[in-house]
């Protein structure tokens, strides 16, 4: 016979900590917190068989960056002699070519182009093309570094422009300002199909 209220026996909860520990360790092991980063590129449209000859590019508007099978970099600008360069020089060369700050006749021609505010009509080198050519045996790493330097040249120019115009770096600009800077230095990297040189 029960004397007064019967007590409900308490559930022993001391092992919940251990159970949740095991779950915790499982998630700790399976989790991968690394955020994916990468170089964003835009590929050209598929090759068009019906189109006979590619659009003509004036010599002064073109910068050809050639990476051969030994991962050497050769730069040809317009009519000039090809020069072999090292990776660290490439960014400066590309910047000089894209911006043409001194308005030289052997560098890309400038056209008046309507840009979003606050730029208005500006003289920019809208017809320039940087052509990146690789060999089938070129190392992917070298190709990537070259690509990285070329995009770096654009990013640096945009950054300088943003500092001059808006007084703060490109990364701190709002979307409209970023777009305006992007259009001022429009990315014109063309990746030609690779050729196979000196094959034996």
């Amino acid at each position: 016979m029960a004397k007064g209220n019967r007590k409900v026996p308490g559930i022993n909860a001391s092992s919940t900590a251990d159970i949740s520990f095991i779950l915790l360790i499982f998630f700790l092991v399976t989790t991968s917190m690394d955020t994916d980063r990468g170089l964003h590129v835009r590929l050209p449209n598929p090759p068009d068989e019906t189109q006979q000859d590619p659009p003509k590019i004036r010599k002064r508007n073109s910068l050809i960056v050639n990476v051969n099978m030994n991962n050497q970099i050769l730069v040809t600008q317009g009519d000039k002699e090809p020069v072999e360069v090292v990776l660290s020089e490439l960014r400066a060369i590309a910047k000089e070519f894209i911006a043409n700050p001194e308005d030289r006749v052997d560098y890309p021609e400038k056209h008046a182009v309507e840009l979003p505010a606050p730029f208005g009509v500006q003289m920019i080198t809208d017809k320039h093309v940087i052509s990146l050519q690789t060999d089938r045996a070129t190392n992917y790493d070298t190709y990537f570094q070259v690509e990285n330097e070329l995009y770096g040249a654009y990013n640096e120019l945009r950054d300088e422009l943003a500092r001059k115009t808006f007084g703060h770096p490109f990364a701190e600009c709002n979307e409209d300002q970023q777009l305006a800077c992007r259009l001022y230095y429009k990315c014109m990297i063309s990746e030609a199909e690779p050729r196979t040189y000196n094959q034996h």
Partner: protein
Amino acid sequence: MSKFQKKGKAEMPELNTSSLPDLIFSILFFFMIVTSMREVELKVEFKTPSGTELEKLERKSLVSNIYIGRPTREYRAKLGSQSRIQLNDKFAEVANIREYVQDERESLAERDKPLMKISIKGDKDTAMGIITDVKMELRKAWALSVVYSAAQR
């Protein structure tokens, strides 16, 4: 001074662990939320190049991966150590890429289709030949937004 008199042997006070499960549970939930399970089993080894001009990949659901690298040790005897392409869970040829891109595109919502991105996770030591072939196939499949996966330098 009975206040300071010790009553027999002093015992170490027991540590109250009743809040420990709650504590662990909250850490557990944190990891459950941030975790993303690895979807594919990697059959190729790759070490991505490092760069400075990288951008983050914003929405993972829009990204399809193409892995290019040396087969891992267990497959090397069969396939050699030349770079191979892996799509989803299996090795693939360049010719399979178009189909893969179409399948991946089909799995996206209609408004997300133009935003699809292809992430090329290529090994540093791969020759450009295979990468160019992949790029050509991607162009033909109209998957023009490509990311070269890399590590921040």
